[in-house]
């Protein structure tokens, strides 16, 4: 059975239609009309995505791979737009459309007071379309289209509040850092074309084994392995999009965007595009253990060191942002040990619980009248129970408590790294293990600071009436003193809490039911290729005796104890001995500074790349263009002509006696020359013989 082209087209295009309607016709359809059309568009995509997943899993449908139209055809070289929909794509479709749908719903509540309401809906629908194009692509051109298109929407959404200087700094930074990644990515695509003469996935993967033994001459005498060059270049693209060290710097700043997009784009979907891409390219990556070691080390470094920064953040969104970086590192580590399906599995569970955490944080932010600093929160659990409980569920999944979804995906990664023999696996194992402790520390700290302990905010008495209702909750945005609220925080409306509940369910349960088939049952089939020698997941699968047993076993393992340590220490510090946090901070001041300054990476980048480029540009402009070329070459030659002409002109004074004098002078010189050179020769010249 074949999947129908029209269904796939509808999945991709329905959000685009919604985007165009909300974007261009918001005047006619109004705010409600805008959210209705976009919600409808994404809703249709979501239903059809589940249908496609069902068809591919239980309905017996085969993977779909067809071109829709020719993008260009030059000689033998064809570039087409087309869809490849197998189980890997289907899983991405479901994750993207499901989270996107909930975020659309949530936005109705979150952005209710914003002037850019319809614009926001237009953007997030455009994002959904772009993301679909990316995951459904069957070739490198369309992949790159989706890749850059999601980058564009990310740029637009980070800078959504374009009046804020920090927002428009962050979006430029995000785009440029991503472009550094895309630079590598494009070269990777060029290398694919060079070695395999195609831009089509199926053809490229089919001829991938032919890459073995081929090399690329970099300099005279230096030969690089073809597969390594291709994979490292492609992975540089993934490092940009999935914010891996050292291209991670844009993601924390992207929190300048409204919270719904932090959940959708900068946690659940877009940032995982790099992970998806590498998983999609598994037939290529399997050819280069060098590239995979590179992937492994980068991922491990990201997993541990960005997580550490999360511990010292006070902004509720930034904690989750660093947590996202760290979790992306876990996924990358999984890729690095050839555990592609594990990476995608963690991608899925992470999408649910991280979107949940972000949306929960957004709910807190609404309640706190746009205060994001956790130092002014505390004790919120009694004001907003639904947010509190759902965020705890998300947190438990994040720290990988057995039986939650996060446990199944993360624990499998840690175990697989332990089994791997790839170069760098020992370092990675240490990082992911230590990362478990770090994850626990920042997560529990965040939960306690936000929901538990004493209230660290005050409510102005004269505003404390409920009948003011929702409307003026946002009025004081940006104008209040820190920690002073116009009226008491309260639970968010249903459009906000319903998505939280709907995300809490898969955060808790999806791992339990799917870990068996997805990780150990070869569910992805031919979509993911793993070399038999590197199949750590297969090795791990031999010890797998069902989800229940796996979870029980998890209670006896080191990661769980590390989380327990984090839990106990955070509980003690933040519930019973709040002064302790400060003492620890003072005791470890140098370390705290290093983390607070984010290892100075941003400062170095800004000084070297941003300011350095401007300085270099000025040098080129002033010295190269203005001085050397314009002043010397162009105007210099003009001046030279001018000077020569001016001196020649002086000879032609117009005075008769000047000319007479010149004639006499000339005659004397001639005669003198004649006399000097001897008789005959010069005379004959003069008379023309």
């Amino acid at each position, binding site marked *: 059975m074949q999947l129908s082209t029209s269904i796939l087209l509808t999945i991709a295009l329905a959000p685009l239609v919604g985007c165009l309607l909300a974007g261009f016709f918001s005047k006619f359809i109004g705010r409600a009309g805008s959210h209705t059309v976009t919600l409808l568009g994404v809703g249709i995509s979501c239903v059809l995505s589940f249908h496609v997943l069902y068809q591919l899993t239980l309905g017996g449908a085969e993977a779909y791979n067809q071109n829709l*139209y*020719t*993008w*260009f*055809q*030059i*000689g*033998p*070289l064809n570039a087409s737009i087309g869809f490849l929909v197998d189980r890997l794509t289907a899983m991405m479709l479901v994750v993207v459309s499901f989270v996107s749908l909930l975020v659309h719903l949530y936005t109705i509540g979150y952005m209710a007071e914003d002037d850019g309401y319809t614009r926001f809906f237009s953007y997030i629908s455009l994002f959904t379309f772009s993301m679909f194009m990316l995951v459904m692509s069957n070739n490198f*051109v369309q992949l*790159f*289209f989706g*890749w*850059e*298109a999601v980058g*564009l929407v990310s*740029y*637009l959404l980070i*800078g959504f509040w*374009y*009046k804020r*200087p920090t927002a*428009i*700094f962050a979006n*430029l930074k995000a*785009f*440029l850092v991503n*472009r*550094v990644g*895309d*630079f590598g990515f*494009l*070269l990777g*695509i*060029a*290398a694919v*074309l*060079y070695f395999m*003469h195609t831009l089509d996935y199926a053809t490229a993967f089919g001829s991938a084994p032919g890459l073995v033994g081929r090399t*690329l001459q*970099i300099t005279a005498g230096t030969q690089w392995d073809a597969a390594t060059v291709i994979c490292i270049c492609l992975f540089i693209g993934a490092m940009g999009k999935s914010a891996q060290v050292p291209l991670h710097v844009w993601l924390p700043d992207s929190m300048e965007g409204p919270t719904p997009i932090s959940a959708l784009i900068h946690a659940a979907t877009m940032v995982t595009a790099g992970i998806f891409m590498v998983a999609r390219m598994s037939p290529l990556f399997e050819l280069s253990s060098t590239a995979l070691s590179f992937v492994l080390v980068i991922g491990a470094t990201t997993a541990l060191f960005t997580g550490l920064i999360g511990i010292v953040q006070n902004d509720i969104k930034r904690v989750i942002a660093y947590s996202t970086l760290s979790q992306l590192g876990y996924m990358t580590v999984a890729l690095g040990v050839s555990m592609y399906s594990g990476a995608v599995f963690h991608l899925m569970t992470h999408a649910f619980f991280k979107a949940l955490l972000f949306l929960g944080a957004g709910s807190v932010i609404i309640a706190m009248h746009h205060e994001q600093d956790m130092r002014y929160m505390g004790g919120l659990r009694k004001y907003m129970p639904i947010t509190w409980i759902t965020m705890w569920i998300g947190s438990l999944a994040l720290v990988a408590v057995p039986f939650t979804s996060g446990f199944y995906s993360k624990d499998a990664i840690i175990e697989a790294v332990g089994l791997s023999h790839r170069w760098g696996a020992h370092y990675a194992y240490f990082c992911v293990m230590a990362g478990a402790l770090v994850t626990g520390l920042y997560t529990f700290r965040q939960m306690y600071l936000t929901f538990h302990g004493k209230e660290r905010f005050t409510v102005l008495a004269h505003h404390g009436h409920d009948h003011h209702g929702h409307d003026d909750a946002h009025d004081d945005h940006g104008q209040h003193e820190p920690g002073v609220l116009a009226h008491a925080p309260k639970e968010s409306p249903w459009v906000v809490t319903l998505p939280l509940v709907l995300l809490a369910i898969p955060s808790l349960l999806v791992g339990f039911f799917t870990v068996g088939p997805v990780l150990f049952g070869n569910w992805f089939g031919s979509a993911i290729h793993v070399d038999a020698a590197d199949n750590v997941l297969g090795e791990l699968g031999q010890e797998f005796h069902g989800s229940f047993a796996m979870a029980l076993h998890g209670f006896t393992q080191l990661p769980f104890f590390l989380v327990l340590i984090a839990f106990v220490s955070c509980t003690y510090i933040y519930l019973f001995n709040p002064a302790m946090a400060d003492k620890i901070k003072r005791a470890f001041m140098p370390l705290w500074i290093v983390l607070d300054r984010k290892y100075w990476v941003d400062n170095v980048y800004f000084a070297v790349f941003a300011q350095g*480029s*401007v300085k*270099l*540009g*000025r040098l*080129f*402009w002033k010295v*190269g*263009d203005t001085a050397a*070329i*314009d002043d010397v*070459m*162009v105007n210099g030659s*003009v001046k030279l002509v001018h000077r020569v002409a001016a001196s020649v002109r002086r000879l032609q004074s117009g005075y008769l006696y000047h000319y007479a004098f010149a004639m006499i002078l000339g005659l004397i010189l001639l005669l003198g020359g004649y006399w000097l050179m001897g008789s005959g020769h010069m005379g004959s010249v003069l008379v023309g013989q």
Partner: protein
Amino acid sequence: MFNHLLSLLIWLPVVGAIPVLLAGTARPNLARWLSMLVAVLTFVASLFLLQQYNAATGGLQLTESYMWIASWGVHYGLAVDGISVALIAMTTFVGILVIAGAWEVIQDKPHQYMAAMLMLEGLLIGVFCATDALLFYALFEAILIPMFILIGIWGGPRRVYATLKFFIYTFFGSVFMLIALLYLYQKVGTFDMATLAALPLTMKEQTWIFFAFLIAFAIKVPMVPVHTWLPDAHVEAPTGGSVVLAAVMLKVGTYGMLRFILPIVPDAGAHYAWLVIVLSLIAIVYIGYVALVQEDMKKLVAYSSVAHMGFVTLGIFVAFMLVRDSGNVAMAGLAMQGAMVQMISHGFISGAMFTCIGVLYDRMHTRSIKDYGGVINVMPWFGFFYVLFAMANCGLPGTSGFVGEFMVILASFSANPWIALFAAFTLIIGAAYTLWLVKRVLWGDITNSHVAEMKEINGRETFVLASFAFAVLALGIWPQPLVHLMNSSVSQLVQQLAIHKI
């Protein structure tokens, strides 16, 4: 069948300029509508051209040839291939938008302005279909005159300096071309370009002729280091002048390379391909940095034009390298196609960028970036177009700016990964200078009261920008029709690259 379509395309705007001129100062609206009529008719004629040209067979078509100067054997010879057709269609399209763009903006002697524009359009079309080298040369020089007038009369405060620099610079270059053409003429006794293409030449001859042509066309493109006339000319030119200059006139330089260097001196071209490639890469990287620090919006976009035209010259000469060094005809075709697509695409994008700057200038009478800030607050629709064209300028996939650069970078990798590495640097630096401009002009809170008083784009401006946007998006989403139009001509060019003439 009517077989003077090319003559019609050339002479319709040139002759049409006369009644526009006659409308005089007294009847500016008549002049405007007349010139619009002429521009639209020319555009319609170019649609007929698209329909008449058989892209499948390729080669020169719709040939016209009459003896012009019998004693020297100079012909009035016209014909088009797919590349010419594409360039002509782009020219007539931009022609309408330039007339519409100048509508109320030019208040001083609008009839003369419009007439000069139409004249320029006709001459440019002529350049793209001349098959006689002397006719080409005459038209190549003649286009300087209306542009000289446009900058000199409707230009900014330093217009005299700029227009002289522009005129003398290009004129200086074309003298070398003339000498080369005269040398060839005394060998074969004709200026017919097909005959010149078949003429065997020694390497020494080819080298001299190559550099003569290179100087002439490199100035026109312009390539580093003979590019400094362009920012000055752009800064002083009126908006319409800048649009035509960037969109069409620069292409005359690269078009000349295709018609003269490739067929007449292929061996010297191949031998010195490295030189042009290095200069192109310098244009992409070095000029990118220079663009980054510009304080004048127009200068910034002018420099960005130099960088983007670098992809055209890069594509053409990488094709040389691919054919001669590795016999990789498929990749050479990709490089050449990339260069051609980039020519058309840059026409739309640079035209649109300069139109945007014109829109801002009309409201604020300043081109200085620091005078702006937060324009999006008062002109959201303008902001939409500006961001779209900025993204096209950074080569975002889905816009035309991506297609050509993508093809050239992919093909360059096959010639030498280092070339691709430097060329791909445009991804970063191009985004940096374009989006930093957008950040400073568009985003942010309203910075001053002048910005606060800016009015949203009107219907006419929306029409112009939307037309550009349509072209930019259509080419980006589906480049195949354009590629198909030029494909057989491009493969013929690539085959010519392989022919040794020594």
